[in-house]
């Protein structure tokens, strides 16, 4: 076989050293009735053949490099500088495992320390972990963390209704057998969903001695950014109630907007995919998680710390390991072990090469292009754009025809991948589309989308 190096002679010699005759003798402890079942799999392919097959599968898709893409909704198409993949493909990085042995893992460890530092810089928090699976599972872990920090004495968690619907679903999955109530997220009308400040008041009114945490998206799933000055008041109210404030963020937006650490968030989570990670049909992505130093012992996941070696040289190690499953077992802060180290490395390289200036440029380009697109669509008959609240690079459009129908025409006739159909997230939002523009969308693309939407227009009678 391709990746097994033994010659027949070596195999014989190895069996002789072991003291058995045949390979099959190594499996006598497997119950005979179940031993050596047939494996009904397609016959093996050579590398050349497997390449043909995979290329054919890949070509059966339409990808965002071929069609103009205006989909966001939690996964974003951004420019990825060439240096990132070049460096990620160093075998020393991607064929290593979790850095349990620090003397031969300083590369991974130092990069993770830099990652933690950059996430702290972006979020305005004091400590970050070395990553979680994705934004949604990071949120679920943040909720569990808040429950621990309030000593399990507060069973209620308030979820803002316009948190990503799939993130809310994951929180439900994680807490389904725990004594926890999730409130605030559903049952709102279209009119209420359109007024985020009203929603904020409604949720604040539900804070009480039973509440462990309030979760706020920033920007929200509909692209809107709540005023930092207003969120500072929210943080005060949350803290007065003895609860914690959790923020769900888009890291690119944080290049522009006041970071949650500045307005009083206690735990910040988010999806790090926009930081140099390809769309890749939804994964692997990068869960970000940061908090205050006071809460570090309840932060789940790997954490890298600085120290010195025998000779006094600076070095890095995994630290606070006693929080983790391999030591604390059922009392651990989480079951997580393998996270998404390589994705965190990609984000670290991205943030390094983009730097303070480049990241601001990216965020500004997203902002300007999305606003240009919103303004142009607003002028189309039959379409209505939600523009009354500041938004980052996504916004809501009420469409004159069902969103799925418009999207189908867009990709069939215009080679455009249209926006996210919000009716999937909440029936109250049926007939509304979530559109996103990033630095990857040229003015020509934006204009082409506007023209297409204008042509598609309302459904013609009969």
């Amino acid at each position, binding site marked *: 076989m391709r990746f097994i190096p033994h010659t027949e002679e070596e195999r014989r010699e190895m069996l002789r050293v072991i003291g058995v005759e045949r390979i099959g003798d190594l499996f006598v402890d*497997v119950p005979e009735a179940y031993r050596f079942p047939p494996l009904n799999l397609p016959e093996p392919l050579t590398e050349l053949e497997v390449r043909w097959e995979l290329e054919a599968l890949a070509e059966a898709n339409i990808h965002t490099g071929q069609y103009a893409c205006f989909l966001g909704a939690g996964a974003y198409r951004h420019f990825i500088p060439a240096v990132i993949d070049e460096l990620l493909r160093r075998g020393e990085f991607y064929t290593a495992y979790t850095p349990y042995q620090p003397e031969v893992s300083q590369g991974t460890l130092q990069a993770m320390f830099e990652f933690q530092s950059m996430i702290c810089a972006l979020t305005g928090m004091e400590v970050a972990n070395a990553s979680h699976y994705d934004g949604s599972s990071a949120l679920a872990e943040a909720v569990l963390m808040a429950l621990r920090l309030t000593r399990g004495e507060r069973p209620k968690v308030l979820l803002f209704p316009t948190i990503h619907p799939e993130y809310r679903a994951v929180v439900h999955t994680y807490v389904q057998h725990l004594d926890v109530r999730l409130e605030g997220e559903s049952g709102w009308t279209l009119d209420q969903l359109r007024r985020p400040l009203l929603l904020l008041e409604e949720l604040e009114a539900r804070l009480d001695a039973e509440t462990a945490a309030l979760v706020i998206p920033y920007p929200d799933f509909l692209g809107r950014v709540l005023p930092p000055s207003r969120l500072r008041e929210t943080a005060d109210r949350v803290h007065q109630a003895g609860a914690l404030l959790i923020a769900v963020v888009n890291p690119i937006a944080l290049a522009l907007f006041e970071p949650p650490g500045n307005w009083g968030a206690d735990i910040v989570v988010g999806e790090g995919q926009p930081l140099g990670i390809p769309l890749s049909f939804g*994964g692997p992505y990068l869960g970000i998680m940061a908090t205050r130093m006071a809460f570090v012992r309840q932060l789940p996941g790997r954490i890298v710390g600085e120290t010195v070696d025998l000779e006094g040289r600076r070095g890095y190690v995994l630290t*606070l390991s006693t929080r983790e499953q391999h030591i604390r077992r059922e009392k651990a802060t989480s079951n997580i072990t393998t996270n998404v180290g390589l994705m965190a490395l990609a984000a670290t390289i991205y943030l390094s090469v983009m730097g*303070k200036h480049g990241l601001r440029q990216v965020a500004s380009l997203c902002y300007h292009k999305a606003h240009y697109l919103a303004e142009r669509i607003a002028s189309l008959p039959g379409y209505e754009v939600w523009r009354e609240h500041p938004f980052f690079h996504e916004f809501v459009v009420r469409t004159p025809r069902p969103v799925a129908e418009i999207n189908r025409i867009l990709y069939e006739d215009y080679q455009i991948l249209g926006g996210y159909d919000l009716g999937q997230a909440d029936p109250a939002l049926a007939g509304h589309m979530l559109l996103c523009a990033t630095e990857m969308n040229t003015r020509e693309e934006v204009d082409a989308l506007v023209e297409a939407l204008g042509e598609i227009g309302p459904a013609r009678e009969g």
Partner: protein
Amino acid sequence: MPEPLIFEYSVPGRRGVEMPEPDVPEAPFPEGFLREDLPLPEVSEVDVVRHFLRLSQMNYGVDKGFYPLGSCTMKYNPKINEEMARLPGFAQLHPYQDLETVQGALALMYHLQEFLKEIGGFAAVSLQPAAGSQGELAGILMIRAYHRDRGEGKKRIKMLIPDSAHGTNPASSAMAGLRVVNIPSDRRGNIDLDALRRECDETVAGLMITNPNTLGLFDENLMEAIELVHRCGGLIYGDGANMNALMGICKPGEMGFDVMHYNLHKTFSTPHGGGGPGAGPVGASERLAPYLPGPIVAIDRERTVRPDEPVYTLVWPERSIGRVRAFHGHFGVFVRAYTYIRMHGPRLREVSEAAVLNANYLLARLRGIYPVPYDRLCKHEFVIMGRVPGTSVRALDISKRLMDYGFHPPTNYFPLIVPEALMIEPTETESKATLDAFAEAMRRIAEEARSDPQRVQQAPHTTPVRRLDEARAARQLILRYLPASEPRPAPAQV
């Protein structure tokens, strides 16, 4: 010489990437929303390339040499996997595209589900979970949902876990709100059947089995253990971390496992990435299949016109525990695992055979040099004790000294039931010559332990840094770069 932090290369005004000027009119930013400072490094592209390249050189990976980390299956990661995952038709797909535009991706996921079903002997597979531990959590939630639907949710709150299990097993059970009961091992390293029998009652939710277990042994009591737990109404969870021993050897689903996670980054050659991304698909028996996390890929019967041109869609298992993550799982990892499985087909059995051959060969070479606590035929890995009689050298010292010989150390101090454990998993991709060289290094270290113990106890001597002060790291807690001027926040007692 230590490599500076990327922040320490920063010079105000230096730039790595220039973005184009806006080609649309600039919109005004809202007042009172903007941040003032963004304390990221300001460095050039060359700085970045050299910095991370130097960091990579301070790492050890499978591409550099032998990495016998037990329970982690550090096999060679074929390079074709990497290229395939980067094909634009995969890497540039948005997860919310209309399903008609992603039929190739769905086909790949569908076939991967089918392959994993066949390899594990299960009725259905969900690819959703992001890693083995998340697969475990999903599987335990499925077990709980099953009992709940039978009106026994409140009663069945006890998860039985052998003392040799990975720490994730009890941690995942606790996250699902279950009480963990430890089951000891017997003298041959199997589940102690008497202890198990005593715990088998109507409060048992299930038993979590790692097989081969973390001693590398095929549990000789497996069938009886499964039978005992099933008879009291409990279900069997399989920790599939050790599947590299079993492909084509036996199918857990056929043997009575109700649910099991696979580690694509172990068994199916996707890279470990310095700690992820992995992927932890879950396979389920008929009775647990309706509870799988969703969505999963199915053939859309209504829209399929010709059987040889199936149309794929995403569906929800009928009684699904829900989502464990956003979108459709670690698709980039699926592409790699699919590529690997397609290159092997039914010959995956030869992979497991060679993995077991290598482990038994290396065990034979090390027997007599180091104590072997459970000395019988092993599967893909085995455990020795890192002790050299007559010396105070420990497993940790041996591990560190191996680095000087150019090897990555085995897993040490696990499983917890063996003192000074060294857990060695060679994998099938290593040659006899490599195994011989490793055995020879181990023999020489045992010799050095007697002749020059200091040399071993102060190892490593040749790595970028020497032994690091982990106590200091945990006490001072420097967890991010801080310019010298900033005060250091103190952790509170929480």
